[in-house]
């Protein structure tokens, strides 16, 4: 649904109506997008108690009520705080490590030659299997969850950055050298911007992985956190509680994705082609 309505020669009036039309089409797009979600919720509400026992699947209204109670009573805040802290720390450490490691190995063929097989090997280990060990190593508190989340984030970001840096056009680098760039300038003006799309893609893909890492850690053993809350709810046959916890996690992932998307559009402005290119010479 492209708006090609505003072409050259559009007068003020038609411009106005075109703007209104584009607003209307935007609203149309949004409602078309919401429709399947609403349909699922309605079906869930209807089926609960009719097709499946409510004790198994709860129902959207019950989940909403449960969410309201959790926030109104303040019961959820300590869990939110713990999990939020773990997520942010795990994500930031993982991303920072991934960018540094990926950049270093991407720039230095010698380092890559030595370390790539090791990284590849560790990449293949299912990190979730490490969760019990991490609890032993880093304790039952947030340390083990941060470690688990950051290691999952690290590999994703690492591989994206590594690929991005290695894919930089050799001729651009040579050209920059002839133009007078030193190594620091080369990093800033050539390698980082060229790798930026890969870095941002990695950062975006890593968001759900940091959630998985943290929740698995909390499931395994913890004293506080959303994972623990969900775990307890499910072991006490409280599906509304489970879904309420999942809804909060979902909100976090959607929010983080939105932020990442904004950042991406801002930093990768140059990738969006203008609608009309100017004519030749």
């Amino acid at each position, binding site marked *: 649904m492209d708006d090609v309505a505003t072409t050259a020669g559009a007068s003020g009036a038609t411009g106005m109506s075109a703007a209104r039309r584009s607003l209307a089409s935007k609203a149309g797009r949004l409602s078309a997008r919401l429709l399947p979600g609403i349909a699922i919720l309605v079906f869930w509400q209807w089926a609960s108690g009719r097709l499946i026992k409510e004790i198994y699947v709860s129902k959207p209204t019950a989940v909403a009520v449960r969410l309201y109670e959790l926030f109104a009573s303040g019961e959820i805040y300590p869990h939110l705080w713990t999990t939020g802290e773990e997520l942010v720390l795990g994500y930031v450490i993982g991303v920072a490590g991934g960018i540094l490691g990926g950049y270093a190995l991407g720039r230095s063929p010698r380092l890559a030659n030595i370390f790539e097989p090791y990284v590849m090997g560790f990449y293949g280990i299912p990190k979730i299997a490490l969760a019990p060990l991490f609890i032993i190593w880093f304790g039952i508190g947030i340390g083990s969850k941060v470690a688990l989340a950051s290691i999952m984030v690290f590999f994703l970001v690492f591989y994206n950055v590594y690929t991005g840096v290695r894919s930089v056009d050799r*001729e651009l680098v*040579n*050209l920059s050298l*002839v*133009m007078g760039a030193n190594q620091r300038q080369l990093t800033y003006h*050539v390698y980082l911007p060229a790798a930026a799309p890969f870095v941002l893609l990695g950062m975006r893909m890593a968001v759900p992985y940091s959630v998985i890492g943290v929740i698995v850690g909390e499931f395994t053993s913890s004293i506080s956190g959303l994972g623990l809350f969900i775990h307890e709810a499910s072991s006490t046959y409280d599906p509304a509680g489970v879904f309420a916890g999942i809804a909060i996690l979902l909100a976090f992932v959607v929010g983080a994705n939105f932020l990442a998307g904004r950042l991406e559009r801002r930093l990768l402005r140059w990738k969006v082609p203008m609608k009309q290119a*100017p004519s030749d010479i």
Partner: protein
Amino acid sequence: MNDAVLSFDGIRQDFPSPGGGAVRVIDGIGFEVGNGKFVAVIGPSGCGKSTLLQMAAGLLMPTRGQVRHRGRTIDAVNREVGFVPQQAQLFPWKTLAENVELPLLLRGVAAPERRQRVGAALEAVGLDGFEQYFPNQLSGGMQKRGSIARTLIYRPDVILMDEPFGALDAQTRMVMQDDLQALSRDAGASVLFVTHDITEAVLLADRVVIMSQRPSRLLADIPIDLARPRNVFEPFKNPGYEAAYEAVWSVFRSQIDIRQRAH
């Protein structure tokens, strides 16, 4: 010649071949680029024309022989030359103005002077008004102009051009050739211009260096004494053009005959 800005002396270049061992690409090439002169290098594809440019830029060291820039042997990246590659190679994440400004920024030129020189350089290539455009918003010809402006802006005394107009359409190419003629004269720079187009070489150059097939040797170094400015739109209207073309072609044709027989 004492006024040689760039000189190639007994250049030999071997590249490792995929099956082990080495492929000799260049086998003894020597010529000079005089001060302010426009020298075109032509040769069949794969004969190592671009390799010569990389050596002059200090990006590749010859297996044997020396490249000298103003008497100094090139043994590291040569920041005193300008390089215009086959593709425009503007940085896609920088606007046109930022692209053209980059060499000055890298060389630590102060901001007010940078702005002023960027304005002048863009005007010289006819791109004023497009400062804030990103390269992917510009046509191929405009990108090429931007690439040339980016090279001229730091006033190198030698400009290396690697088939710069090869990817352009015929009309754009003629306009660009005409502009290059004026720009290189105004800049007072020497130009080493690699091409596979004999017409282009004869129209633009003061001398045409002809290389043979791999392993390439110097076949001829032919002076082109056509009056300037030359008419690049109607080559045949330049007095003496036919003779000059014939002089280059008579040497070059042997290389093409060899190729056809090999097939």
